[in-house]
């Protein structure tokens, strides 16, 4: 188990390189088996993970550029563990869902495996430069996936996605370098090790600027309003698998970045910026939910809904209490599962009808009952129905946020209303009412391949909705540890006041 994290990161990449050799027709089988092994490895990691330990586990450290303090440094804690598992799971199911007749299947599989490496790498890195490395590298396979298999405007969308996030992350890179320099000034040592950075105390002014630099990278990835416009494009044009992974995992990189970098390294600035972040997040929640309602394209509805939900996650991250933070990490997972499933579902109908425009459908529930049922389950999870996975995170986030701002919570809480408005409108337009077109009568319900991809997600949605404890507990531990770290690390009294690890005294 010593090098399990390295194996987790590089296994898909090595398999990807070997994948070039694999025969064209067995490419999918190859992809499925590799992704399955990766998932098993990730689950093995979970099995050997010590849930009572909130700190980093299975750490590996070896210097790469010692002159400059860059080292290969990986570790896993309760926050990253489950995101990694989810990434592995979503990749596997995404590959399962691929149609056999996908053109250039081999290229697709290889890019997906590389993408998986970068995703896992981002979440396991404890070195800022290695983090950045995987972060940037993830753009490349995604660019290819969107650009090669996407819709008519795929090139525009792919390039926009790439450039927008690339520009933001370069500013983030400046922040990372400045951070390393400040650490060097303080201690005389060059290091990009996050755990070292956690110990550095910075002045408010330094934190302010660093926060802005990090924000540029993370906020575009999340994507926060008003930096979100690449997302509808990317989703609108991406092939199903691209959208699934983009929504489920890539977006989480942004919020994960806030959790891993901004909060613990810059606690004072994080608190200072809370109102700003909250304002943007509230706009995200409400504004994009309304935009989602105005969409005609089913996929765009879900794309915008992702932005809206990411707003809730951001709110939780900056609620500065264990409930909110833990909830938002859980919500990252649940949003990953749910939005991934929803994009898969849209892909299913798109494959059959060649359209995603809701008005072209209508009455699908009668023709494709299983499809409608699974869609319904995911819809309910998306609107945060209790006993589905969507509720736990959303509830905790809103609960945590209430401590910060009551009015804000009511505004953010409108998500449960307007979220159901656009989702139910989508469902009604597509599934209810009479059939719009005769030809839709002949639509086939889900086949075995699609069920294999979707049923596990349904099971998870219910399982973690009813019994979230196995993953909520480690998350909670790590979230609390993070808050304690923030509290100890902060310099301003106001920050300490804002952070609530545990409210010991009940009024």
């Amino acid at each position: 188990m010593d090098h399990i994290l390295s194996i987790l990161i590089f296994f898909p990449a090595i398999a990807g390189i070997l994948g070039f050799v694999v025969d064209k027709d067995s490419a999918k089988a190859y992809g499925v088996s590799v992704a399955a092994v990766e998932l098993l490895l990730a689950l093995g990691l979970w099995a050997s993970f010590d849930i009572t330990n909130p700190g980093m586990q299975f750490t590996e450290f070896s210097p790469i550029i010692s002159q400059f303090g860059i080292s290969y440094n990986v570790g896993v804690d309760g926050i990253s563990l489950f995101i990694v598992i989810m990434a592995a799971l979503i990749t596997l199911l995404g590959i399962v869902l691929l149609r056999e007749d996908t053109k250039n299947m081999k290229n697709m599989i290889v890019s997906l495996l590389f993408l998986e490496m970068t995703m896992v790498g981002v979440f396991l890195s404890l070195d800022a430069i290695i983090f950045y490395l995987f972060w940037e590298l993830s753009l490349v396979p995604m660019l290819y996936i969107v650009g090669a298999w996407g819709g008519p405007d795929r090139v525009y969308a792919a390039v926009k996605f790439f450039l927008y996030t690339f520009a933001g992350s370069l500013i983030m890179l400046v922040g990372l370098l400045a951070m390393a320099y400040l650490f060097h000034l303080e201690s005389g040592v060059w290091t990009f090790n996050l755990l070292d950075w956690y110990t550095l105390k910075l002045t408010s002014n330094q934190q302010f600027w660093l926060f802005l630099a990090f924000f540029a990278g993370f906020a575009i990835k999340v994507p926060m309003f008003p930096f979100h416009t690449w997302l509808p494009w990317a989703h609108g044009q991406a092939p199903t698998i691209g959208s699934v992974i983009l929504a489920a995992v890539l977006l989480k990189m942004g919020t994960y970045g806030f959790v891993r970098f901004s909060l613990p390294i810059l606690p004072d600035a994080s608190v200072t910026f809370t109102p700003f972040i909250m304002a943007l997040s509230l706009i995200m929640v409400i504004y994009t939910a309304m935009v989602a309602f105005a969409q005609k394209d089913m996929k765009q509805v879900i794309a915008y809904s992702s932005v809206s939900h990411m707003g809730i996650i951001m709110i939780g991250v900056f609620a500065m209490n264990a409930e909110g933070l833990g909830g938002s990490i859980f919500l990252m997972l649940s949003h990953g599962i749910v939005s991934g499933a929803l994009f898969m579902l849209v892909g299913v109908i798109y494959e059959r009808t060649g359209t995603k425009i809701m008005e072209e459908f209508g009455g699908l529930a009668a023709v494709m009952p299983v499809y409608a049922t699974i869609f319904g389950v995911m819809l309910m999870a998306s609107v945060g129905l209790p006993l589905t996975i969507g509720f736990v995170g959303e509830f905790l986030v809103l609960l945590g946020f209430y401590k910060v701002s009551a009015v804000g919570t009511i505004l953010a809480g409108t998500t449960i209303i307007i979220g159901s408005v656009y989702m139910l409108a989508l469902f009604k337009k597509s599934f209810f009412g009479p059939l719009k077109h005769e030809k839709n009568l002949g639509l086939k319900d889900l086949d075995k391949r699609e069920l294999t991809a979707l049923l596990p997600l349904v099971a998870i949605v219910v399982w973690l909705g009813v019994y979230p404890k196995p993953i909520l507990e480690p998350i909670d531990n790590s979230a609390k540890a993070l808050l304690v770290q923030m509290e100890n690390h902060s310099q301003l009294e106001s920050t300490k006041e804002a952070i609530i690890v545990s409210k010991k005294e009940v009024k």
Partner: protein
Amino acid sequence: MENLVYIALFAPFVGSLFAGLFFARSPKTHLVGVVNSTLIGIAFIAAVTLALHVAEHGAVHVTMMSWISAGDLSIPFGFLVDEVSVTMMLVVTLVSTIVHIYSTGYMDHDRAYNRFFAYLSAFVFSMMILVMSDNFAGLFIGWEGVGVCSWLLIGFWYHKEDRPFEENPSISPSWAANEAFIMNRVADLGMLVGIFLIYWNVGSLQYDVVFKALPHLADGLLVSIAIALFIGAMGKSAQFPLHTWLTDAMEGPTPVSALIHAATMVTAGVFLVIRANPLYSLDAVHEVSMFIASLGAFVAFYAASMALSARDIKRIVALSTLSQLGYMFAAAGLGAYWIALFHLAAHAFFKALLFLGAGNVMHAMDDELDIFKMGGMKKVMMGSYIYMGIASFALAGLPVMAGFYSKDAIIETAFNDGSYIIWAILVITAGMTAFYSFRQVFFTFHGEERYKALGFHPHDMYKYVLVAMAPLAVLAISFGWFMENFHEFITKNLPDYEMSHTTHHWAWLLGSLVIVLAVTGIIIAYKKYAGKGPNAWKRDEEFEQSFIYKLVENQYYVPKFYDEFIVQPYTIASKKFWEIDKAVVDGFVDLIGKMSYKSGDVSRGMQTGSLSAYLNWMGVGALLLIVAAAITALIG
């Protein structure tokens, strides 16, 4: 006893899974109906046993497992069976059982028979969670769960097309389902806020902990919690202004309306207020309680007034439900929680009966709802006629019937509290209630046989269904007789409400007043609608054009208001935002790109290809450098 709790809770769930997982895709089979009805019946038996146990040994409290724990929050799946919840359980399971059996007949011809039972049992399960939970979060699970089941069931005939509002005020089942869900969500937000307030100030969501801590909280806080929770209750119990969904919900199959939108789910709001009685009976929140009572009274009257002119058989019943919910809230608001609960139970029985009867009529009339098209049907549908008659008598609050005891008690309470305005409204409403319920009965079963001209061939429901409805009829008649026993049982848990001496003194007079009004109402209704031949009822076109009629007919234009001032602006704003998103937010990003491109295009202009131009650029550059050097040197 723990096992019984689980049996009561999970038997419906098992039924739902049975129908949903194994039979969802298979053709209709009565096996599903039978199995599900049996399972609900088992739940009912378990509930009865539990009730006996509770009466004897007190509450049963079980904790199944922990659900969410994060930060300091710890929410278990815990279930509390005490006097209040066991009453609710009894009502829910009993009505559910009967509705299930009824549905085997009613849904006989429906393709999606199996699916229907899956949903219906799931609803019962959710409702059981709602009433049995020992904490607010668990309540919320049930709360949302019934919401979803209600959504599924209202929209059960999802394939129906949208029709314009003028033609059908509830547009289509799927529309009505969405409306119900969304409107409930508005209220749920209030509920959530209440839960958050409780958590951050008490640190727990368990009823016992919370109620114990309540007296120590600040007044303002208590008021906020009370308001927030009541907003939640308003949604589920369809109180003004969140009431429009209830009448639209009648798009669902009639058993659904009977079970969900009359007997059980809509009373969840009342249940919440009763459950939270330690909160609402605090002095600090007196104003809130008074508001609840006043709103209840208002809704009672408001809904009744709409029922006066309604033509849709189900809408009439739905409006009467709304009106009766108003009564319950009035009682609860005035502190007479046990009376509210009593009325809740009584109402569940007679209203379910009424709905099922209406269902029989619809079934017979091929889903025709317009009472103007019916008439004189008692000949063909004697059983249903009797049932609906009994239910209407109970609803009208005539002596001996269940409604008489419960409703009378509420009116008495209002009088006793000195809230004479509420009292007056309730009394007048009682009269109206009698009028509209018998208007419906007479329209349907008496008078000219208008349906014949329209080619209907009505026949009564299956015998076994009618038999199955009997318990409801019995209870609709006799439930009131056990008021004293109920009082004794329930006040172990709920605060007693003692009538003052004066009230006792005037009780007979108050009762008589109500009876007189009710009887008057019935007589008027009879005169107007039950006649045959020359006395037969004729449409009064002129009256139908009058402002008042129009006002009532259009539900006081509330739906129109919502449409024009909320739905449409929201839609327009959404579209505008989308345009802004594309043109401004995204446009700005593209603008940066375009500007870069443009400036590249402009600056490549310097690359003319001519060597002398290049030399000039170089020369100019050098000169500029030297000039800059000179200036810098001169300045400093």
